[in-house]
């Protein structure tokens, strides 16, 4: 499989710091009629080009909020967010976003749901169609191109969402619990797939997950967050080889160390989980 690497790397940037994502002392407060919620406070992060970073934390600690900040769908109440060195002011289109729910259009078939990305961006039709075929084969959706979302399993729907997010070869991929609805086996397969896609494309990935194993297997760094108001409790460097066989990784001492540390942190900071 040839997945081009041309548009994925954008190392140099305006400020010259070289980071793909920079978050500086960010706080997010939601004002609703009943009460004010501080979702995030005092969050600072730096993500280098081509990194795979996982974010774990209790439910409601602001993980989705963090991704929405990076994509520009949400503006911080204070602090700064930069993508490729530019201040994020509005929705960014140089990203691929996978939402917590698959968010497919029920009136479009799998293929046409993926093609939505191309249509909105005005990509050349023939090129887009070829790319869709490529992605469908890669994610094992062959044979279901013309099925409607209500005819697909939850896992297949998520794979369609993954294809859609990858279609335009975004330099940054933001994934919000993409595999939450999958059974354990499919989830493992998707993890192996995602790791392979990441290695082939060099995309910078931010992955929110509830699975500690998934976070450690996939990521180079795992950000552990505290419960609301969310802030970074600790950043764990995962010292596993680049080439990660699933079974071998699960039994590696480093895997046990990292997952153990994350579990301790989450246990120490959460009561519910």
């Amino acid at each position, binding site marked *: 499989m040839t997945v081009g690497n041309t548009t994925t790397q954008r190392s140099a940037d305006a400020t010259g710091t070289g980071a793909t994502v920079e978050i500086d002392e960010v706080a997010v407060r939601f004002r609703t009629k009943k009460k004010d919620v501080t979702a995030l406070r005092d969050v600072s992060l730096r993500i280098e080009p081509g990194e795979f970073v996982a974010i774990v934390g209790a439910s409601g600690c602001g993980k989705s909020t963090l991704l929405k900040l990076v994509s520009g769908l949400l503006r911080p109440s204070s602090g700064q967010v930069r993508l490729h060195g530019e201040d994020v002011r509005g929705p960014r*289109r140089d990203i691929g976003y996978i*939402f917590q729910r698959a968010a497919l*259009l029920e009136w479009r078939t799998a293929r046409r749901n993926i093609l*939505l990305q191309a249509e909105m961006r005005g990509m050349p039709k023939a090129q887009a169609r070829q790319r869709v075929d490529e992605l469908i*084969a890669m994610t094992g959706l062959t*044979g*279901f191109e013309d*099925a*409607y979302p*209500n005819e697909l399993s939850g896992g297949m729907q998520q794979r369609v969402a993954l294809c859609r997010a990858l279609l335009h070869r975004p330099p940054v991929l933001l994934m919000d619990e993409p595999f939450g609805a999958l059974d354990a086996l499919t989830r493992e397969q998707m993890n192996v797939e995602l790791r392979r896609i990441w290695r082939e494309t060099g995309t910078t990935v931010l992955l929110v997950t509830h699975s500690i194993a998934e976070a450690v297997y996939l990521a180079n760094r795992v950000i552990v967050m505290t419960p609301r108001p969310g802030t970074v409790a600790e950043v764990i460097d995962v010292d596993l080889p680049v080439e990660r066989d699933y079974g071998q990784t699960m039994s590696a001492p480093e895997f046990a160390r990292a997952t153990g540390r994350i579990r301790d942190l989450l246990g120490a900071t959460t009561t519910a989980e």
Partner: protein
Amino acid sequence: MAAQSTIEQRERTAPAGATASATRRPGGAGAGLLRFARNTWRPAAVLVAILLVWWMVTAADLVKPYLVPSPGTTLDVVLAQPGYFAHHTWITTYETVLGFAIAIVVGVLSAVVMVYSPTVEKSLYPLLLFAQVIPKIAIAPLFIVWLGFGLSPKVVVAVLMAFFPIVISTVTGMKSIDPEMLQLSATMGAGPAQTFRKIRFPAALPHLFAGLKVAATMAVTGAVVGEFVGANEGLGYVILQANGNLDTPTLFAGLIIMSLLGVVLFVVVELLEYLVLPWHASRRTDSATTTL
């Protein structure tokens, strides 16, 4: 790489599943019509049963013929003056369809404006509600005064009747869209026009069609109400005349043609729904085969 080989296995088994889904959903207009026919034979049977009961009641002389004429007499009245009935049916159909069409255009457009501008919505809603709650039969004479004796006051009443369900259903439909779909659209760099065309409007279609079905029947009522107030043609006029002459067979004929007109319009909208929203209609038939 055990996991990867399982994915390949999945790919190999996939086409079987695909053929299964293909037999379940043969695409195209023909399949839509077939589904439609399957779903309409039951109400048709009920209709035949009602006709049968009507015929038996009159044949057994359970009611006086001048109160309830027999199906045969009613049919004879129509066959005796086919031109007369055709003309008045055509007039009412014309008023109804024109009123319905105008209501769709005006209704959908106002709904779109209201969804995109909360200010307009807040100022228009009370007005809409007012136009809806005021009895049409009470304001219809005013339209006769303003617009004369011709077709236009009837069309206006039909528009007024059909407008409201269309606006409400379209507004509801466009607002029911998952906010994440709109955010997704933003990350794709889509502008408001693209988001509307590809996401908001299609998402509102099932709601819109529900409103259209209500509106279709309302449009018939509107046209006939307009004719009741002042007309020299149309089914409303036929019914009023027959009533004055105690001519129950003509009255019955007029009533039946009028109801048929409403039903036909309703069925046309439903047919369109089957053709335009295949995914939606299919889910409806699917739910009939499951236990829920």
